């Protein structure tokens, strides 16, 4: 994820060119906002955290020495999502348990079974719902790979775990999606 365009923009920003920061925000808003939105599941929370990520990045850019800018942004986002979860536990799960609790939660929220909800949607909707039902640690790895194409080495660092655990989380996530979306997976 070494990107010379990032380095140039960061250097220009350090020299006082505020527009360079806008270019970085524009470049990464889709993967970063998509990740935060699907981790928090609430647009308002996602907007808050997205803004907070950039404010922290802006504040720390003069001291930034890494060469993996997107991974760095995701690391900040990961920490902010965890902070938000700690403050609002009932709304977002960060546990790594089976999906049973989550399925029950969604069923109670939507007043009908998540299986039925999955059946009602088109393929893309079913995939989004199925990913939303993954345990948070697995969902996070999945999103970091699919939204931002982060390497597992960086994902492991962000989650403060080993690369094997990050790989296993991705593998478990894919197994669950394969089971939940059996018909759709056959089309892949």
């Amino acid at each position: 994820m070494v990107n010379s365009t990032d380095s140039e923009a960061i250097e220009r920003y350090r020299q006082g060119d505020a527009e360079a920061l806008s270019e970085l925000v524009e470049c990464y808003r889709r993967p970063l906002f998509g990740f935060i939105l699907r981790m928090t599941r609430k647009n308002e929370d996602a907007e808050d955290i997205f803004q907070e990520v950039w404010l922290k990045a802006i504040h720390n850019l003069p001291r930034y020495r890494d060469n993996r800018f997107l991974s760095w942004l995701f690391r900040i986002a990961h920490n902010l999502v965890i902070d938000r979860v700690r403050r609002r536990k009932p709304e977002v799960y960060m546990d790594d348990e089976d999906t049973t609790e989550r399925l029950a939660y969604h069923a109670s929220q939507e007043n009908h079974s998540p299986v039925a909800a999955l059946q009602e949607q088109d393929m893309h909707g079913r995939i989004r719902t199925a990913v939303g039902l993954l345990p948070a640690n697995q969902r996070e790895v999945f999103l970091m790979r699919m939204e931002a194409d982060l390497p597992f080495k960086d994902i492991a660092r962000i989650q403060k775990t080993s690369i094997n655990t990050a790989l296993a989380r991705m593998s478990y996530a894919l197994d669950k999606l394969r089971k939940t979306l059996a018909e759709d997976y056959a089309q892949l």
Partner: protein
Amino acid sequence: MKINEIDKLLLLSQSGELSARNRKRLELMLAADPSARKKAEELDNLRDVWQQATADTPFPSPSVLQGIRQAAAVEARKRDMPALIWFRLPAVGFAAAAAAALIALGASLTLTLWSPNAAPPTRVVVVDPVDLQIEAALEAIDTSMLALLDVPTDDALPGNDS
């Protein structure tokens, strides 16, 4: 958590983190195992499908992007700014408007915002109480702007609590 060898190699291959030696191993495994080849194809296609499934991801609202741009501009200007000012603001939400107003002024100032109702610092600009040149900075600001910002009297400024 455990992961079988071929899944691990497939994932590392897709993320471009596979060594040459392990790439060779993976090629041999794929040649010998049709189900592994199917998994590899799924994995290759999944990212495209996910990107299509989330193509309607909403963008952050314009006000959020504007707030980020303002904060970036304030921080960029800070590099060559001689003075810092603390304002005691009535609410955190007022901070963005205050920052925008000062940027519009074009003054060589760094605004440090602090709400008495929230633990400092607020979200817009970093608190840095070092070397406050309050008197000089206040003179540089139009007094009508101070009224707009609803800044209380000088005794509300940090360091003037007595």
